[in-house]
């Protein structure tokens, strides 16, 4: 058998289309969106063809001209094959698709296959296939030959003379795979009950046939397992090419005798593989042709072609801010405008009329070539110095990793290189180097790490950041907090306590993965997770999806099966570890008391003032699909709508426990009035601010304004403000804060009117009144409010209508409320 190499293969698919293949079966589908079980009815033939189509799809995907196949059907009503032509016989065997490089047309033809009315003999078909293949490969003796039989094994087989065929196949090195519908499989495991006698005989015959072939040429399996194995992630191995360059140290031009220069080769060690292969399609429905007997409408999907268009906005006066700014170019022509403006204002420009250039502030610098003079550089890796391994910052490497080997054809280079690698390895140092891939290309800075392997010494290269590549953001210290008076704070909700540190320590110990993997060949437990076994789920899922869509007629009725378990095996921590760490986790939850702060719900400001975006919004922007302008108006983008709904539903589920806390102002708390943190570790952020609240009791008005201005947490802010006001009023000595509270209420009322929180205001005020007029209430405060009169009372419908809102209160009721 010739050496296995990619391509240069002819695979013959022999498909059984005897009447028995028309039996229908129920194939399970992945659960539907609601988790319901789903299934689809299809014939055994359709099911078997899925396998064939997958195999062919893989060939199309690989895109090799030398990966060819042909399809022969047996049990066909027709007889059309070369053996029959020459010698007669071999009936009901049809060469359905001649050997060629497959394409989408091949798949279309396969879809047209239907179960026949007659039986055909698989051994006849096998002989035809081997002959047809041999004739085709007459001048291509080195090609790999494969035959795949797909059958249900339910039809009689002529079991004479098959030994001769086996002999011939062995001689030609033809490999044979038999895929059987519902064949017994001990490994799956699957055993068909009430198997027909003929199928039982056929199965054992097939097994015998396969066993008679040389070991590496025969394979027998059941269809369901074959289909499953197709979704197993299969890494496409790429051989890294060696590109030659020089390793240098010192000045090799003028001080050659004390400089070194070694011929080396560089090859990729890691290279990001990306999912891909998607093309865009668009379907259009067409009326049926007259000669189409079924008379049904069809949809034709065509691949779309990409075209780059260049657009220009010729109306400088219209673009906002442009006329005022004394510059010679459009300054505000950015994404916002582009999205917003009617396309008609934009004009297409031909590519030939364009000038290349660079943006330099608001001015442009034309540059005909698209680049300036390049730095004159010489190919090679120049060592700049060495650094100790312990000074190496593992967060710096910013590229894929490359191997660096000594030139394979030069012993002196190998010896020289090896001596450096070994010396670096033993000293525990890395080299800092500057690499120029080709003469004239941009230099990169990086490090070379020595590796001493059993039979070879090599280095690994990774690119490191230039000064320009590091962003010096400043972050507040996590350990050193300084108070406003300049003193160091040692107890603060931001600083973990001893208890918290201990709990975290136990959690880390219990979540250790060191001995959680498989055993190696010496029986030693390996760590859980190995990059070499972690398949990129996206790549393999995408491939699975691509293939699936290519072989099924409709995604809705034939949904994509679940991803192969191999793809998601590292998605969750191992069960054993989860179990072991459960207690430590509970402790952590208990001592850290982390709480999600209610999400802000985006809302339009009524005053039409566009507030500056804060950085969080961009996160949402990135998540959503709409153009940026629309972010303020969440309802226009379906995804932010989803956000919103999620946000609401989240808070709904939380109110069960948390809401109660919020709404019960009388809930006893420890020393809520103390302005300083309590001596015991207190996880609360602000002793004056109840957990989960965004308004504190110390500066309620400031908190309230801040929240309003920052993001629209209006509903939450109004609600919290109401609770806070009622709390303050209830407390002893609240008279001291009378003016402040009244101010709060005024602002709150105004906000409620503007922000359509009218019901919230009315509820708060009613609650406040009830509080005040209770036995132990603050009657004095209510009389203060009464003095303010109608202006502070409930919001009536007439008031609300002015602002386009609604209220279910009449004006007179509002008037009366404050008087009583």
């Amino acid at each position, binding site marked *: 058998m010739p050496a296995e190499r990619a391509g240069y293969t002819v695979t013959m698919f022999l498909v059984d289309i005897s009447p028995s293949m028309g039996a229908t079966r129920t194939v399970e589908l992945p659960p539907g969106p609601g988790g319901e079980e789903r299934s689809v009815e299809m014939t055994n033939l359709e099911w078997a063809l899925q396998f064939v189509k997958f195999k062919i799809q893989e060939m199309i995907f690989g895109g090799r001209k030398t990966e060819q196949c042909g399809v022969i059907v047996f049990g066909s009503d027709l007889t059309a094959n070369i053996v029959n032509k020459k010698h007669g016989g071999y009936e009901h065997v049809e060469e359905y698709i001649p050997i060629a490089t497959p*394409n989408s047309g091949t798949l*279309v033809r396969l879809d047209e296959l239907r179960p026949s009315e007659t039986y055909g003999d698989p051994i006849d078909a096998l002989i035809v296939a081997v002959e047809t293949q041999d004739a085709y490969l007459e001048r291509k003796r080195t090609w790999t030959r494969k035959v795949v039989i797909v059958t249900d094994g339910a039809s009689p087989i002529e079991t004479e003379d098959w030994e001769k065929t086996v002999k011939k196949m062995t001689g030609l090195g033809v490999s044979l795979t038999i895929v059987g519908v519902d064949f017994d499989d001990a490994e799956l495991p699957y055993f068909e009950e009430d198997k027909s006698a003929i199928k039982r005989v056929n199965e054992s015959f097939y097994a015998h046939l396969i066993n008679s072939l040389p070991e590496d040429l025969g394979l027998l399996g059941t269809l369901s397992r074959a289909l499953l194995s197709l979704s197993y992630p299969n*890494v496409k191995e790429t051989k*890294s090419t060696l590109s030659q360059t*020089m390793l240098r140290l*010192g000045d090799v031009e003028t*001080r050659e005798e004390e400089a070194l220069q070694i*011929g080396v080769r560089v*090859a990729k060690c890691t290279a990001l593989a990306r999912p*891909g292969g*998607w093309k*865009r399609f668009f*379907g259009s429905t067409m009326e049926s042709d007259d000669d*189409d007997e079924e008379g*049904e409408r069809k*949809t*034709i999907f065509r691949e*779309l072609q990409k075209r780059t*268009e*260049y*657009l220009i906005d010729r109306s400088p006066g219209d673009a906002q801010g442009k006329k005022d700014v004394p510059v010679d170019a*459009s*300054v505000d022509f950015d994404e916002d405008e582009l999205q917003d403006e009617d396309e008609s204002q934009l004009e297409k420009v031909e590519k030939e*009329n364009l000038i290349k250039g660079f943006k330099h502030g608001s*001015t442009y610098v034309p540059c005909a070539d698209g680049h300036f003079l390049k*730095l004159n550089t010489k190919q*090679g890796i120049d060592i700049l110095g060495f650094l100790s391994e312990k000074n190496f910052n593992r*967060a710096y490497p910013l590229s*894929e990793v490359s191997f660096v080997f000594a030139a*394979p054809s030069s*012993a002196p280079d*190998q*010896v020289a290189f*090896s001596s450096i690698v070994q*010396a670096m390895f033993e000293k525990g140092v890395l080299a*800092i180097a500057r690499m120029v891939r080709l003469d004239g290309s941009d*230099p990169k800075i990086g490090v070379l790490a020595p590796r001493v392997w059993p*039979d*070879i010494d090599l280095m690994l290269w990774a690119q490191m950041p230039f000064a320009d590549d*590091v*962003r010096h953001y*400043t*972050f507040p*210290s996590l350990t050193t907090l300084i108070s406003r008076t300049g003193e160091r704070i040692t107890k603060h909700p931001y600083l973990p306590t001893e208890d918290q540190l201990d709990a975290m*320590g136990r959690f*880390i110990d219990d979540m250790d993965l060191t001995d959680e993997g498989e055993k190696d060949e010496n029986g030693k437990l390996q760590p859980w997770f190995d990059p070499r076994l972690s*398949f990129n789920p996206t790549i393999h899922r995408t491939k699975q*999806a691509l293939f699936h*869509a290519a072989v099924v007629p409709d*995604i809705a009725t034939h949904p994509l099966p679940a991803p192969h378990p191999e793809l998601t095996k590292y998605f*969750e*921590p191992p069960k054993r570890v989860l179990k072991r*760490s459960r207690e430590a986790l509970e402790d952590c939850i208990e001592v850290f008391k*982390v*709480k999600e702060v209610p999400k802000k719900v985006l809302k339009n400001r009524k005053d039409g003032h566009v507030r500056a975006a804060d*950085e969080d919004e*961009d996160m949402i922007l990135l998540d959503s699909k709409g153009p940026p302008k629309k972010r303020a108006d969440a309802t226009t983008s379906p995804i932010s709508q989803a956000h919103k709904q999620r946000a609401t539903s989240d808070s709904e589920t939380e109110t069960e426990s948390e809401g109660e806390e919020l709404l019960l102002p009388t809930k006893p708390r420890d020393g809520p009035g103390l302005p300083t943190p309590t001596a015991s570790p207190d996880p609360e*952020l*602000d002793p004056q601010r109840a957990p989960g609240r965004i308004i504190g009791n110390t500066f309620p008005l400031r908190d309230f304004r801040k929240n309003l*201005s920052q993001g629209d947490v209006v509903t939450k802010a109004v609600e919290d403000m109401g609770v806070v006001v009622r709390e303050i009023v209830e407390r002893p000595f609240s008279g001291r804060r009378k003016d402040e509270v009244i101010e709060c209420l005024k602002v709150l009322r105004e906000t409620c009117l503007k922000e359509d929180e009218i019901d919230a205001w009315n509820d708060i005020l009613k609650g406040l009144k009830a509080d005040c007029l209770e036995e132990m209430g603050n009657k004095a405060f209510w009389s203060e409010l009464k003095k303010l009169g109608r202006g502070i009372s409930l919001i009536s419908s007439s008031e609300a209508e002015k602002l386009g809102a609604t209220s279910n209160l009449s004006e007179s009721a509002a008037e009366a409320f404050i008087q009583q």
Partner: protein
Amino acid sequence: MPPYDDWNVLVEEEEEELQDTSFFEGKRDVILFCIDCSESMQELRDDPVYEDVKTSHLLTALDAAMQVQKKKVISGPNDWVGILLYNTSRRNENNTRTSEIKKGTFVYQHLAPVSAPSIQELMGLIDEARGDPDTLKNKAPPLQGNKIPMGDVFTSCNWVLRDSAPKTASKRVFLITDDDNPNPSNTKLLTSARTTLIDLTQSGCQIEPFFVSTPEKPFDVTKFYSSVLPSNVVGNEQEDTGVLPDSISITRMDDLLEQMRFHEQPKRALFSIPLELGKGFTIGVKGYGLVTEQRKGSHKYFVDLGNRLEAVTSRTAYIDEEKGAEVDRNKALFGMKLSGGADQLTDSDNKIGLGASRVVRAGRRPFYTAEEVQSFHTMGLEPGIQLLGFKSRKELSFEDNVKHSLFIYPDEPKYSGSKRTFSALLQKMLEKKKIGLARVLVRRNSSPVFCAMLPQAEKVEEGGWSEPAGFHLIVLPFADDIRAPPLEKEFRASSPSKDAAKVWIEKLLIKKGFEPDSYPNPSLAYHNAQLQASAFREEFDAESFEDLTRPKYDMIHKRAGNLLKEWKKAIATDEHFNNVVLTTGTKRKADISVDEAEVRSKYESNMLDKLRVDQLKEFLKNKGQSVTGKKADLMGRVHEWLQMHP
């Protein structure tokens, strides 16, 4: 930049990288320099660098503002800058652009996109001031008597920003002053400063102070500013925590520019997602890109409209060629390329048309929608970091790298308690020398990756940048990304050779390790220098350009030259030095390996012409020489090389 849906949708090659850059380009940064012009700022001092030159804090501040603009014009050409002076008696002339600002403040440079002319104008002023120290006093005479209330300064800043700055930008005020108590013993003014500053920050503007501290006049923030500056100056804390804001930067005047460099780019988070440590134990984190390869800006297209050049935006259109019509990108479906050949299509297919197409019964859809494709990318996961467990620090090897790392820091406003939890995790992991393993999906349109969580301890450096505390997320390669080594066996040097190498390695050890700041990207600098020269209409002087990343030859030879010589001798006597390498290359290729000894003997006996062209080429290739030309050229080159290397 590409239109939004282009980088928002999916499937584009290098999708994630594209997002990162467009994210940064997409937002404009506005900086308003707000510089104190009082007497002490204008006082003349000896220049720390040049002899017999006088300078002042104000001049240094203006110089720093100019330098920042010079950088911005290239790194952020869409950014805006302006300069406001205060404590000066100069008044703005009547202008229609902004509201009348407070007395004592003066807009020297209007808020506008950075541009070559305005930078040149500022450069002119600075040059003039260097020549004649009184220039600035005349241009911006210091206010006599009482200083103006800081509240007025903040109000002016607010008005200037409100009236001129583009609405979607990030806005910052760089406050430069040497006065730690501008409005002494006046609590009313203090309160008004405080409230006006709150107004300023509430309108979405951040303030970044640069307080000038000198030995004669140290700056005490607690006198005034610590009670004025809100703790949310950084913009990401919601509540007043009673903690001094971290961004109060006190700087010596000489360090001003250095200090500003750290603030040059506004701090922008790439993502804000939950970090789930365990079920029911989730904190919030924000992610930042602290190391990202900074590339040359790609060229853009312009069209000449006669009186001006106008930038052109590009857009990808999707065309149904059969119909010759454009298809709404949102209506396109996704599937696998149909290979073009129509040769096997049935008759009815051929009638339908040319090109790749697929025909199904109406109502059927053998293609995916964009949402479905996205779900294949995300594997149905929501954005977030899922901790999987902990491993020994040693397990993170050098070769497990494919791209730059990300940095995460707790996001307290999203989950209260994030900071203490994060801090505890960090401290304990450092103590136990552990790394975390996590499954990470940063955005709804990205793909899940596995990352090592490498804890970073806080390191504070004197006066400069410190390593912040947090975790680096190092993206691990998948099995699909890992390549097998193409070579597996080569000759190994013996001990004497190795020992000889150790000696010079020792001499060339850089004690501080790798410091990115020592290596500015030369090709980027070369490009930018030309860009700037062209914009300023100056001649580009290639001669004066210095590539700081070139090896320091003199240092290398001085320290290790002789040792390298010794090492070479040791190598030449190594047992394997003269071995002939057996090439096991493909059969098609003739054996072209030729060892140096053979070439040299041919050269000495003047029989170089006995070697074949491919052998000559191989030899030259190994010596890093050119392999072009005819046989005579090659022989000449070999001759030359052997002569040079006796």
